[in-house]
């Protein structure tokens, strides 16, 4: 009964807190401007998605990025992915699933003290290469792994 009011109250509070943080100069402008890149997430093709998200799709293969993903995912709805980058100055990590309808799964922007490490779970429609793209010092580096999916996670 009170649920809607609570949600409203909470969102108002959250917005208020962000406003205070901005006016106090606590949030860097970059973090504030990082609006959700709609075009990147709606792109139907991996390279187009990368261009929209990171400004370029020219990524160099790098052995300094370690991606942990299963060889065979029994259930495409839950595929655990862990990415670690040893490249100095890694700013962001993006996860791209080539064969998904919308290849860009997620982008993670790290703060200056944040380690280049993320772990999450994604959905995969079918067997595909999963690529982690790391942005460091204005350049893009990538690592890929093929994950076999026995049951798809989309439209199941």
């Amino acid at each position: 009964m009170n649920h809607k009011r609570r949600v409203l109250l909470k969102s108002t509070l959250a917005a208020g807190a962000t406003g205070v943080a901005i006016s106090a100069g606590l949030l860097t402008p970059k973090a504030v401007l990082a609006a959700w890149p709609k075009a990147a997430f709606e792109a139907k093709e991996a390279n187009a998605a990368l261009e929209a998200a990171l400004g370029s799709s020219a990524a160099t293969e790098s052995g300094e990025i370690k991606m942990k993903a299963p060889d065979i995912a029994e259930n495409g709805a839950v595929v655990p992915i862990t990415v670690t980058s040893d490249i100095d100055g890694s700013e962001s990590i993006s996860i791209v699933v080539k064969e998904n309808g919308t290849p860009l799964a997620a982008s993670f922007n790290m703060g200056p003290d944040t380690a280049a490490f993320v772990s999450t779970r994604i959905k995969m429609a079918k067997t595909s290469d999963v690529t982690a793209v790391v942005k460091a010092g204005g350049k893009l580096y990538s690592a890929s792994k093929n994950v076999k999916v026995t049951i798809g996670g989309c439209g199941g």
Partner: protein
Amino acid sequence: MAKSSIKVRAKVKKGEATVKCLISHPMETGLRKNKKTGKMIPAHFIQEVNCEHGGKNVMNAQWSGTISKNPFLSFKFSGANKGDTIKISWVDNTGKSDSTEAKMK
């Protein structure tokens, strides 16, 4: 207040914090059909997750419907002490949001 949709575990070891969080959310892509009615299930997924520590944004994750239902996120950052508070918040594509605070152990 209603129970938060976010579960957080944050541990500090030698100045490095490991944060793990689980968010309960349907994460609908908008491409699935309801088998009984044949209608499309509207998209409903988290777009952005933010984590703040000491007034600084340590992690900003931008997600799509490709992230699994009830998403899990783990990351690490340095410069944290035991007892510090971190704040995790999310916003989804329908404008809903939630946030929670947790003490580091």
